[in-house]
């Protein structure tokens, strides 16, 4: 009791102090943080200097296949590191606008430890302008912002045998796991079933990893490269052939939604329990599916989640109601003014999803951005912060 009271007091003091500092800054420079006031003045001379997130220098951009690109980043001292399998949010500036996307780290943790270097592997998607567009903003020797590493798709501590199932660029978090020390010695059996359409990226790297383990007399990594064009998708037969004891393995699935659902159903139907299965959605985002539904935007039901500091409210839309109208039907009391796209009173942050601008009929980007609720019609599932 006592300690918690003390803690509360400390907490309150801390908050008061923060508030006082913020007020002082607001008073002196009309900015809640002195650092961000000075940032634009300092950055022209010291490009590394930044107040928000972490800056990372792009040291190399290379093309692995004609639509897969790998980016090497040198992280700053402040960056807190990652667990193999995690992803980061990368922010770069394109045409004056900050654009943010999530990418899995495909390099080994050991490399980061010794060289402060990470690698991201990115597939250019033809459907959306999204990824190629992002890549156009990433140039060697420039700086990008990265977030702390995030995500739960990491190896557990148990030395259980593993079964990795990847599809397409879904291999990226897995290759980071396989090449990091964590899996080097204490796990007996590792199988990787890797689906791809004709071209398996990182095939060479995987083969040499497997060879290295052999040389070091470690239990092997069994690689199964499946060409979906010839051998089709996952099936019980395929699974049994590749890894007969799959029921006893800890499974890590990474790939597009369809593949994950299919595989998970298959595993569960064979008695693999839910907590044995880890997964991460990956590959072509819903993006192009959303674009397809644009024309049907006012027919298909779409889920809109409004997040506020206190709670989250889910609304389903079957019409071409704007986000403002949806928020109102959910009695969220959104603020607004003109309701015609002029005053910007109805601004909110879209965390993800596509909305259509009702004035121009144009779809938005998929990532995080500021939007006006009164002229935004959700085109798919959308996450909103109000």
């Amino acid at each position, binding site marked *: 009791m006592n300690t918690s009271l003390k803690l509360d007091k400390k907490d309150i003091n801390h908050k008061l102090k923060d508030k006082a500092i913020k*007020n002082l800054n*607001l*008073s*002196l420079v*009309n*900015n*809640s943080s002195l650092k*961000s*006031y000075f*940032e*634009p*003045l300092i950055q*022209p001379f010291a490009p590394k200097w930044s107040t*928000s997130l972490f800056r990372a220098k792009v040291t190399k951009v290379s093309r692995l296949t004609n639509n897969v690109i790998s980016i090497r980043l040198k992280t700053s001292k402040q960056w807190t590191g990652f667990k193999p399998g995690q992803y980061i949010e990368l922010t770069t*500036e394109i*045409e*004056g*606008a*900050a*654009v*943010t996307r999530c990418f899995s780290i495909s390099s080994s943790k050991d490399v980061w430890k010794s060289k402060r270097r990470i690698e991201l592997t990115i597939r250019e998607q033809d459907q959306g302008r999204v990824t190629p567009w992002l890549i156009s903003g990433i140039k060697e020797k420039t700086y990008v912002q990265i977030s702390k590493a995030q995500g739960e798709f990491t190896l557990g501590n148990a030395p259980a045998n593993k079964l990795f199932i990847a599809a397409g660029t879904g291999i990226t978090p897995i290759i980071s796991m396989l090449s990091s020390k964590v899996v080097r010695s204490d796990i007996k059996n590792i199988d990787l079933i890797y689906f791809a359409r004709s071209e398996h990226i990182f095939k060479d790297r995987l083969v040499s990893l497997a060879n290295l383990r052999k040389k070091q007399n470690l239990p092997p990594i069994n690689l199964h490269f499946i060409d979906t064009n010839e051998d089709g998708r996952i099936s019980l037969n395929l699974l049994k052939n590749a890894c007969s004891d799959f029921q006893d393995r800890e499974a890590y699935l990474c790939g597009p939604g369809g593949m994950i659902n299919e595989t998970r159903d298959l595993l569960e139907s064979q008695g693999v329990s839910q907590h044995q299965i880890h997964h991460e959605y990956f590959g072509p985002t819903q993006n192009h599916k959303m674009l397809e539904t644009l024309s049907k935007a006012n027919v298909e039901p779409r889920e809109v989640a409004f997040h506020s500091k206190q709670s989250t409210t889910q609304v389903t839309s079957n019409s071409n109601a704007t986000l403002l109208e949806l928020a109102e039907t959910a009695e969220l*009391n959104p*603020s607004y*003014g*003109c309701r*015609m*796209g*002029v*005053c*910007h*009173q109805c*601004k909110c942050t879209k965390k993800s999803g596509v909305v259509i601008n009702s*004035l*121009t009929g144009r779809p938005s980007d998929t990532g*995080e*951005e*500021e939007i*006006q609720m009164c002229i935004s019609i959700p085109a798919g599932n959308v996450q909103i912060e109000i």
Partner: protein
Amino acid sequence: MNNTQFNQTTDLISPEKSKSLEKDLTELRERTMSKVGQVDANYIRRMVRIDRWSGIVGRISMVLGFIHPLFWVLGVALLALSKILNNMEVGHNVMHGQYDFMNDPHINSRTFDWDNAGDSDSWRHYHNYEHHTYTNIIGKDRDFGYGLLRLSNDLPWRLKNTFQFGVYMLLSILFEWGVAYHELAGDRVFSKKKNSRKKRLSAEDLKRAFFSKAGRQIFKDYVFFPLIAGPMFLPVLLGNLLANIIRNLWTSTIIFCGHFTEDVHTFTQEQCENETKGQWYHRQMLGSSNIEGKRWFHILTGHLSCQIEHHLFPDVPAHRYVDMSKEVQEIAKKHGIPYNTGGFAKQYATVLKRVIKYSFPQKPDNTNGMTAAN
């Protein structure tokens, strides 16, 4: 007294005709917005840097006034420049959401705070919403005369209007305070009316915001910076006061030239019910006036010298207005809509004329420039 006979409000174009006006202007907006990008981001960042550097150098230079008074003069000039840029080209425009496309946490309409007595959040509400939506609608646009001045015959004449030139001068000198206070005072007046719209900011919120912002501004310019100047306390205090007054006079003058020149029109509430978007555009064009000038002049006015374009396209980055104005003029000509523009001296002279003219009651038969213009 029945003022309808004095009414000098203007008819808006018919809903049918308004369609093609809407199309022309919307296309211009689209064309301009498609170009918005890196240029605009670089531009506003440069303005932010100039604003901040001139503020910092200005404050230091003022203290150096003990070496030579010229340092003090330079300091005041730089600080005034900083405040003007901060309020007009940066603050006003950023708070309109013109640069929200950048997704920059600090150059953002929701978070920006300006070096001005008015609380940004309240200002955003009144200015962006009320003033820009109900431009020059008598009784709805509180910025029309700021509740202090009678600038058209829509308001009945009162004896106090006789002294309104003096009031106007005072308002100009204290402009930031006038605007900040007016929002607060106005709200009490307006809250008597039933308003179904949920208010984002309650009267309490507004009051709190007003006092905390006012306190911060006073603390900065009249306590903190003078105090750390030590023996230069008084010169710094006076310098800050002077810089604030220069900024006030400048912003007030420019804003009056944008809405209260002689030929600017006013509207009634009934007129604007069920208004089409084209009619809204039409009203914005009739309710605003431009000032011609060089590039540096436009920048110092925050491009409010292109008030017409600003009112048509409040969220297009303002430094593009000058280019847009050529096309807007053509569109105005095509649709037979007057386009009110002129040099600074000419426009300002008509503002003064208007302030004086409406200091006195008008006879019903006293036809004026405005009705004639219709």
